[in-house]
């Protein structure tokens, strides 16, 4: 039986996620929940024949018997207020806010490690785009002393949540590069670019390669991982072939003779948001991947 799902938050992310979920065989979308009855997202949900309440997260708790899983596309503040209540109601929460209450999941790296968790955090858009690359480099060498990511997104695709708390983005992303990517030290940088027409989301990964690293193995592992991510984010691609540059580089993890540079671009699928908003698309696509894996596992258990 498909999992009965509700999306909370009828903004850009929630509405984009709705269109993705309507195509799913394993996730049965019941409702898009908002707080503004006049929002475009809720109007679109009604048009799709979904429930479109505007009473916020409480609607989900009132209907807990009919909902197995929620996708939270509100804000860290709202998620922190409600996450325990979802758990008490027996509802699995996939958290697209930076609240980081549950384990962080980057699908091609640790999707199957936390499928039983009551609350799963989707890190950040930049984290979804770059952690797989850091992990890919790490698995090809003995140790990765330092990794760094630079994310540039179009100004139009950076919402008020990101803007008011930009430190949360860099801190959470940097943590993911270490905890999930496997780097010993890390740094994350975000840049907003106002160019018109808006630029596609760009991500660059730098990784310090210690002496004796097999450079070809690093490059092969990167290519492999790009294909892996592109399976669920079709617009995820290398903008240029990855390169290994000669240093030395004095990183916080120690001096390294070389660095790998991976130049990525993410074009959105255009489900609701324009294609330049690859940063939002990669979040909703990753959340779908996690939600479907949780649903498949649960249905196996109940058989």
């Amino acid at each position, binding site marked *: 039986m498909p999992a009965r799902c509700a999306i909370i938050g009828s903004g850009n992310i929630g509405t984009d996620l709705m269109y993705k979920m309507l195509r799913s065989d394993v996730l049965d979308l019941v409702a898009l929940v908002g707080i503004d009855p006049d929002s475009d997202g809720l109007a679109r949900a009604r048009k799709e024949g979904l429930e479109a309440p505007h009473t916020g997260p409480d609607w989900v708790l009132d209907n807990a018997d009919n909902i197995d899983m929620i996708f939270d596309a509100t804000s860290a503040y709202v998620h922190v207020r409600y996450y325990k209540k979802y758990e008490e109601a027996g509802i699995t929460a996939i958290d697209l806010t930076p609240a980081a209450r549950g384990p962080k999941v980057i699908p091609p790296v640790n999707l199957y490690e936390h499928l039983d968790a009551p609350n799963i955090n989707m890190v950040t858009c930049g984290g979804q785009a770059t952690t797989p690359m850091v992990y890919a480099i790490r698995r090809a060498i003995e140790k990765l002393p330092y990794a*760094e990511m*630079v994310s*540039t997104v179009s*100004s139009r695709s950076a919402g*008020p949540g990101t*803007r*008011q*708390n*930009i*430190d949360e*983005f*860099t*801190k959470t992303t940097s943590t993911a590069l270490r905890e999930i990517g496997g780097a010993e030290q890390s*740094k994350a*940088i*975000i*840049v*907003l*670019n*106002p*160019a018109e027409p808006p630029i596609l989301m*760009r991500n*660059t990964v*730098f990784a*310090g390669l210690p002496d004796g690293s097999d450079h070809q193995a690093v490059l092969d592992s990167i290519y492999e991982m790009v294909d892996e991510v592109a399976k669920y984010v079709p617009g995820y691609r290398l*903008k*240029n*072939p990855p*390169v290994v*540059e000669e240093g030395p*580089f*004095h*990183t*916080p993890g120690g001096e390294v003779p070389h*660095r790998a*540079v991976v*130049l990525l671009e993410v074009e959105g699928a255009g489900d609701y948001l324009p294609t330049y908003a690859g940063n939002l698309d990669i979040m909703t696509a990753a959340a779908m991947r996690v939600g479907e894996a949780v649903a498949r596992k649960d249905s196996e258990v109940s058989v």
Partner: protein
Amino acid sequence: MTTKANVDYRLIDSTLRDGSHAISHQYDVDEVISIVRGLSSAGVQVIEIAHGDGLGGSSFNYGFSKVDEKELIARACEESGDSTIACLLVPGIGLADDLKDVHELGVGMARIATHCTEADISEQHIQTAKKLGMEAIGFLMMAHMNSPEGLVEQALLMQSYGADAIYIADSAGAMTTEDVRRRVNALVEALDVPLGVHAHNNLAMAVSNSIAAYEEGAANLDGTSAGLGAGAGNCPTEILAAVSTKYGIETGVDPLKLMDVAEEVVRPIMPRQQVIDRAGLILGYAGVYGSFLLHAQKAAERYNVPQAEILMELGRRQVVGGQEDMIIDVALELARKHAEEDQ
């Protein structure tokens, strides 16, 4: 000799922050101590120090600092005398937590820098600086890329977050005097707080643009010793002071002492003199962020493509400060294009 309360504008020297780009962030403790002592004894009111890309800028993307910036900042605070020590922070690169650290070291002013259309990412950091009791300045970079009206809108946001002053930075050294006058005029009219201007010399306009900004009502001006800085360099502090004196503008600093600092302390550590060569001029001409200069030179050598082509393409793409990774991107694409043409 005037008292500081009597000066016509406040001079902020950024040799130890923006100047850091020109030496690829390789300052050591002794250099910092001599520069701070020299500037302070010349009467400079504010001395800015940090990685060139602001607190937390040490990275693959912008270059790693030779010495931890917080160690350098601590030493600068010890040697600062009557001068205030300032730090610059770019949200997205540095953290509000960094402000807390440097405040404890004795830093009294925080300049929070965003691209000239993205002021709303500075709220958290301006408020943190204010809560710590620091003077907070909102710093709008690449100001040539926004209209006077657009800058007013952005500056008012920073003012509403609590900024004590607003700066516009001609980070690409791309503005004519007329560009500066129109922007300063509109901002001085609209703001309740003082305005400042940070000029670069890619079009050889830094000093004249700074004087023009003063004439239009700017109350803060930036310089670096010997013009040390990104691109073809900053507005040279000692020249700005000398020219101001000739105009009868009171700066409170001693131009001769500043000339000594430039000549005896800063020039000896400069790997190259700040001249307006082709690459520097192209930055101003194409409106490209000044600190891309040396990174583009490295990428040009690494991938065997002309530096000027890289810079022109970056201008065409409208990249903004912080996107140094795009230099590698452009170099790789140009190398591929040239290889295809050769076949």
